[in-house]
């Protein structure tokens, strides 16, 4: 046989499915390194207290996902622009009476700024992460990271901290000034992994039939491309060749998940681009993602699990209409879809009004009389405006809509 060229070797290797074997994984097991650092007294390793479930990651290592006592690391993007994403996550916890903590001792991971501007450095970024994790540790609750970028960025920083003693020493020096230890949680957990772990429980409580719905999935780059070996893979989902989160939830809820050719592509967010160079963001989001989805499978909605992706895919569709592009797919997070399936109020909880691509046809297809709930919500707003109500409370929002109808 003639010898293969380098490129042929690469193509040959890439033509085979990834073999999931922790012992032959091409990367070190971070957990072993963390245990060593803990034994040396260099870090505090925060462990999960209480119930957790285990899933295989890309190369077959096992990742623990906590069920409750979670510290909700909010995302600056979703809290600023898509609050229904965050309130849906908490609403789901409340439906099962799961203990959680919504902290005010939290800053942004500042990763968006870092990837957009680089106006920070490795020490600054690692110190921000460690300060947030130390704050979680002080409460005894385990961090659950809402944002895909925070999740990826923290995993990247964890690697850097493990690899470089000088970085650890410098971060420890800064944390000492605030009397905080250098804490690293035993797992860095993304909320969509918790949603994945809970999907059968959601299905048991499902009130809205979703079997008429076809959806596409946009896996968030920073969930599974940064430190790829730490994302959850399941042999039942795409033969274990893609991340299992989001897709598995949708399938559990009876949604038909349709494949499309540009699933691996980024949404076009670009960090700096979405703020100051949106022609890039818009073009990529519409031409490579939304139009491809429409041309290939024409879904009722597209679902993702990161702040930036929801914003980019949703907001980019308006201007493209002027150019007669094929647009009009509503965009939601997996938590919003799960909450909706369990009867969350479309406005009090899921907060559809923060999304700009028309979501009405989707709700109509689900048989949800959005106008009725919109009127109810308008009444809330009128009371807030009149000063007779301070705001929507969990008391208003907790009960599923079908039970209040």
């Amino acid at each position, binding site marked *: 046989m003639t010898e293969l060229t380098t490129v042929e070797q690469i193509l040959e290797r890439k033509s085979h499915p990834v073999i999931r074997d922790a012992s032959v994984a091409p990367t070190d097991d971070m957990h072993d390194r963390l245990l060593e650092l803990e034994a040396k007294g260099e870090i505090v390793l925060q462990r999960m207290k209480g119930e957790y479930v285990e899933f295989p990651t890309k190369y077959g290592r096992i990742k623990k996902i906590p069920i409750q006592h979670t510290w909700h690391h909010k995302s*600056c993007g979703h809290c600023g622009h898509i609050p229904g994403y965050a309130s849906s996550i908490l609403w789901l916890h409340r439906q099962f009476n799961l203990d959680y903590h919504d902290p005010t001792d939290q800053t942004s991971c500042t990763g968006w700024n870092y990837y*957009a501007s680089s106006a920070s450095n490795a020490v600054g970024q690692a110190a921000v992460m460690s300060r947030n994790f130390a704050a979680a540790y002080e409460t005894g609750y385990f961090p659950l990271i809402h944002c895909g970028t925070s999740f990826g960025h923290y995993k990247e920083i964890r690697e850097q901290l493990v690899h470089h003693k000088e970085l650890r020493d410098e971060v420890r020096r800064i944390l000492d000034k605030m009397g905080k230890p250098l804490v690293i949680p035993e797992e860095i957990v993304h909320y969509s992994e918790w949603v994945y772990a809970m999907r059968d429980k959601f299905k048991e409580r499902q009130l809205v039939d979703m079997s008429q719905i076809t959806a596409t999935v946009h896996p968030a780059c920073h969930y599974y491309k940064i430190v790829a070996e730490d994302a959850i893979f399941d042999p039942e989902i795409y033969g274990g060749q893609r991340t299992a989160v989001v897709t598995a939830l949708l399938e559990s809820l009876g949604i038909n998940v349709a494949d499309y050719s540009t699933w691996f592509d980024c949404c076009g967010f670009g960090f700096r681009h979405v703020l100051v160079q*949106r022609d890039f963001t818009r073009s990529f989001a519409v031409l490579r993602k939304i139009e491809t989805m429409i041309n290939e499978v024409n879904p009722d909605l597209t679902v993702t699990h990161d702040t930036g992706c929801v914003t980019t895919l949703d907001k980019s569709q308006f*201007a493209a209409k002027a150019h007669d592009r094929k647009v009009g797919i509503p965009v939601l997070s997996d938590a919003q879809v799960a909450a909706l399936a369990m009867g969350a109020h479309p406005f009090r909880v899921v907060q559809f009004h923060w999304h700009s691509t028309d979501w009405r046809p989707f709700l109509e297809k689900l048989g949800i009389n959005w106008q009725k709930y919109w009127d109810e919500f308008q009444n809330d707003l009128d009371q807030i405006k009149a000063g007779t109500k301070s705001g929507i409370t969990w008391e208003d929002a907790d009960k599923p809509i079908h039970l209040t109808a």
Partner: protein
Amino acid sequence: MPTTFENWNPGKAENRHPEATYEEKERLFLEVKNDVRYEDFLYGCYECGICVSTCPSARFYDFSPRVIAQAMAREDVERIYDIITEDIWNCAQCFSCVRCPRQNNPGGLVTILREVSLKNGLQESKDALQGYSRVIYKVMLKGNQVSPDMLQPDFFPDWGPWVQNFSQNMHVWRKAIPMDSIRGLTDVAWRTDRKTLLELYTIWFESGNMDIIKELDESLYDLLTDVMNEELEEG
């Protein structure tokens, strides 16, 4: 210079930027190479182009993660200077390129190049970040990157009439969120304790982050340090 076996290096970049000396270009490259992360991000390059096939910026701009990895692997100082002054701000930091079979991280290399560019006050980076200072101001001072009040029709006309509608209703819509930590807030994404913010300011000073801001934008630096110092003194 006649081509000899010693200086034969096909593809080696010409001097496209005579305004900077070779020594200056080499100094910048060495600063990049001395970053602790450099060795984690670059292992060599097959020039297979797998990174390019996944890169959104390569579709949109004249930009190539392969060229970045390749120039670094070959230590092509001239080409690296071209990249630092012409290319780095095009990267979308999506990290699709880490699909690299050689385990390179071209997006990570871009991050180091950007940091070195900022630390050395390169004009191209100042230009690229024009219009971005208000975000840096917010993230460093409030600990929140974006907030609802940044959604103004003037800044987001391409997001359509929804932005108009939103900005008119913003105050009441915020109160109509059931989540305590974000309900009612408009100038920040969530409520952050004062103690937490003081700790954040300590991080910015102690990590050398303020020095980067000083190079990038002196007036932003003055603005930030005034507020932070005053708050830290109050304790």
